[in-house]
């Protein structure tokens, strides 16, 4: 069983869990993901690895409570166990040879952007991080990003913290200030990654995005996570989750992401009712 050794609330809807999974911790690299099932009859949920500690044998996940399955996960606390925790899946992010990189994180996507920024920094790469949130209350991992970034810009939609505006505003500013990046790594909502890619295409900067489509087995068996990348069908679980952002068909990915919207809304409502009854 996969014991939760630490649980920390990061903001009203986002929490962190450190899970005991020594074999996964030994192999995990930034960019890879795990699939968990909270209980035996739960849905399989993929989450990108937020951090790992090879010595302690733990893997950190950061999740946003958005639906029935994450609500169920959130009912578990320190000392409880997850029924399944499988990984590390997918290909690690490529970091070889990068000298100067802009890492862009949006919302809970920062949880995935952070380990990549951390690894790049440890390899001696100059890291400029731009992180965006809706408002001050939702800001996560600020200290962590600061400790691994040569430059950090925090953006909020309403200006309640950092600078008011979008991550693309800050990135364009950095580019205009004369920074030339080997690569931009953008992780966040699809719409954010799409607009980062439109911007970087204009400046001809290679951009890598981390895709998070609907997925079931996560090991290249079901094809549910397929995306169109450069006109070809790719599977996020074995070919990704990182892809060349300039080749990804974001509109299609956004569309496919809504496939079970009605079912999800219903599941969320049922979980809410169930939790109310239990309390």
């Amino acid at each position, binding site marked *: 069983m996969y014991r939760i050794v630490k649980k920390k609330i990061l903001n009203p809807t986002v929490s962190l869990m450190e899970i005991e999974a020594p*074999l*996964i911790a030994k*192999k995990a690299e930034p960019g890879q993901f795990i699939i968990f099932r909270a209980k035996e*009859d*739960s*849905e*399989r949920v993929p989450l990108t690895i937020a951090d790992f500690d090879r010595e302690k044998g733990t893997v950190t996940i950061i999740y946003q409570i958005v639906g*029935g*399955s994450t609500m169920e996960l959130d009912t578990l606390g320190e000392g409880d166990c997850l029924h*399944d*925790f*499988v*990984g*590390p*899946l997918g290909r690690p992010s490529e970091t070889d040879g990068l000298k100067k990189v802009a890492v862009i994180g949006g919302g809970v996507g920062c949880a995935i952007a952070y380990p990549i920024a951390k690894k790049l920094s440890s390899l001696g790469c100059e890291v400029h991080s731009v992180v965006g949130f809706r408002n001050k209350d939702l800001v996560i991992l600020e200290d962590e990003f600061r400790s691994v970034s040569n430059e950090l810009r925090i953006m909020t939609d309403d200006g309640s913290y950092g600078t008011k505006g979008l991550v693309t505003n800050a990135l364009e500013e950095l580019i205009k200030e004369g920074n030339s990046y080997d690569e931009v790594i953008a992780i966040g909502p699809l719409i954010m990654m799409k607009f980062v890619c439109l911007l970087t295409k204009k400046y001809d900067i290679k951009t890598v995005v981390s895709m998070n489509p609907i997925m*079931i*087995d996560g*090991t*290249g*068996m*079901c*094809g*549910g996570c*397929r995306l*169109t990348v450069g006109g070809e*069908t790719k*599977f996020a679980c*074995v070919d990704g989750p990182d892809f060349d952002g300039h080749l990804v*068909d974001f509109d*299609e990915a956004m*569309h*496919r992401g*809504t*496939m*079970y919207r009605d*079912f*999800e809304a219903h*599941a969320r409502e049922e979980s809410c009712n169930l939790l109310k009854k239990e309390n």
Partner: protein
Amino acid sequence: MIVQKEIDNLKAIGVDIETNMVIGKILTIDELFEMGYEAVFIGSGAGLPRFMNIPGESLKGVYSANEYLTRINLMKAYKKGSKTPISRSKKVAVVGGGNVAMDAARSAMRMGADEVYIVYRRGMEELPARREEVEHAVEEGIVFKTLTNPVEITGNENGEVCGMKCVEMELGEPDASGRRRPIVKENSGFTIEADTVIMALGTSPNPLIRSTTPGLSADKRGCIVTEGDFGKTSREGVYAGGDAVTGAATVILAMGAGKAAAKAIDEYIRNKTTE
């Protein structure tokens, strides 16, 4: 049921089953040897599903048979209250003529679809599925649209599947596989109404083990190469069987391959210890 019985038998004779271990990711075959295992059998099964690469395959309501059957059987979407969702379809078109296509079609019917079609580009005689599977499908009311090939899946304004454009085929001269080659009939286009399309076109073997095991030979399709009848691979002490070797086939063949290899592994280890 039969598969469950076989698994229970294995547990009863003392086999440990370690779940959540994706070999090739969490551990490699070489690491298993380092941990003290003396032989390894690879039965990693079916891999990446094939698609047709026709327009519309990304619409909502297009599944691979693997995904459809995984949701229904493994994740128990057939049960009311299951946490894994599945489309509640009315009209389903299953593309392909193998055992998996029959399975997907019959599952769709049992999930409450009004009409289920098997769409296959050759004729009834050429269906690769086992005869019994075809008979059972017919009994359950599956409609066979043979000599039919899809060219496009069409969607409504919400990006959901609403139909599949097809062409009629006729059979020409035998091709390399010995089966008569299907040729498109001119001006034969028509549309099948459907809210769900399931692609059951076969799979290519999973690359996770092959790509992380140096010295393990695979053919150009990606199937692990074995020698003789006992699943011996190009690596000493490594045996393989099932879909990972043969490409997508039946659970009957896979279980047989496992049993044959088990005997060979037993012999291999006995010989090794007496040396």
